[in-house]
């Protein structure tokens, strides 16, 4: 009896089980969404821009946007889908305000004059110019092809804007889980 005969990896109903990370639910429709988002990833694609810069978010609000190739969420998390689109409301800006900068001037990165967006198509709202400069440098450092793994600050910022801000409690609980099996206590 051949084992491979009974397991068809391409069968859609098995895909969520094979690719789902812990704690995240998924159905077939969601898998299709993520597949589509993954297809949009630009990893390895030819560099498509020439000029990189930063602007305050007020200036860039009316600019056309560029879809970010950084895909922190092809793991079925919300960041990997194109379903969610948010705009920068005052509430949204308030939720992104750091404790250390009570009245931040939000900045964003622009590629050839177009404002960069996160994988979930959120505004790349960065609370300090220093962070915007760092991310702009990461983009500017790209050679002939885009390599997202060489942009750790962009990945972190996208995680903040797409995932942590969408569900803070999930992240808090995830961190707290480590307390009871903490490496340095054993």
């Amino acid at each position, binding site marked *: 009896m051949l084992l491979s005969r009974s397991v068809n990896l391409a069968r859609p109903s098995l895909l969520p089980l094979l690719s789902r990370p812990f704690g995240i639910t998924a159905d077939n429709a969601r898998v299709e969404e993520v597949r589509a988002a993954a297809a949009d990833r630009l990893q390895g694609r030819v560099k498509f821009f020439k000029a990189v810069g930063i602007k305050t978010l007020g200036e860039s609000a009316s600019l056309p946007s560029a879809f970010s190739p950084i895909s922190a969420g092809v793991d079925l998390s919300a960041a990997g889908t194109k379903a969610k689109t948010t705009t920068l409301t005052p509430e949204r800006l308030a939720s992104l305000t750091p404790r250390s900068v009570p009245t931040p001037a939000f900045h964003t990165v622009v590629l050839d004059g177009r404002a960069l967006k996160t994988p979930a198509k959120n505004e790349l709202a960065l609370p*300090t110019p*220093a*962070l915007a400069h760092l991310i702009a440098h990461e983009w500017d450092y790209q050679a002939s092809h885009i390599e997202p793994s060489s942009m750790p600050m962009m990945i972190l910022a996208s995680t903040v804007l797409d995932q942590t*801000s969408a569900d803070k409690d999930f992240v808090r609980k995830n961190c707290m889980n480590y307390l009871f099996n903490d490496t340095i*206590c054993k």
Partner: protein
Amino acid sequence: MIRYVSKPRGVGRRCAAQNTLRKTSAQNNRLRTTCLIRISLIPPSFLPSLLPSLPPALSLSPTDSLLPPSPLPGYHAGSDDRVLRRKQKGLWEPLLEFVGSDSVLGEGVAVLDGDFVLGSLKHSDEVVRRAKELVWGYDVWELTALQAVTMEAKSLLVGLCVLEGFLTADAAVAASRVEEEFSVEQWGLVEGGHDMDRLNNDVQIRAAVLLLDTLKMN
């Protein structure tokens, strides 16, 4: 001659399939034969007296990789284990002192040294409450940095030390890689394995620390 008896049908089929292959690859068959010939022939009343002579399985328990670092009670650890323990203590004790201070979590952080631990740590209620208070007080940027460091170091306490400004990026990287770096020292670096782990750990933790630094540069 003992007749082969395989109760679960899957085992029988697997053994039959293995018999068609070379004998050296018949692992299941060997295990089954050991079970039938060696173990099943021992009367249950003899088992206690035979325990000292069953070292292959039992002698591994003091160094089981699931269990905490040596030295374990009653077990004379080798010099390697003592060196590792010394390194762990050197890097981790200052962190435990810091998180145990009143300004962070206070006394009551459970630290286990040399016991068999398969369950979770029993921190005091006060420690858990203060940890929650700290974690719930962070903004989204700090929270993401905390998660990145915590997951990379597999330790919330290392994450809290970074967030509270006690650990630099260098120190956080060192604290999160004690065992693997020790293994590299002892056995050498495996290309494509240890070096990639080291690089990934370095990038993740330093990026998180840098993110926190940028929040202070307005």
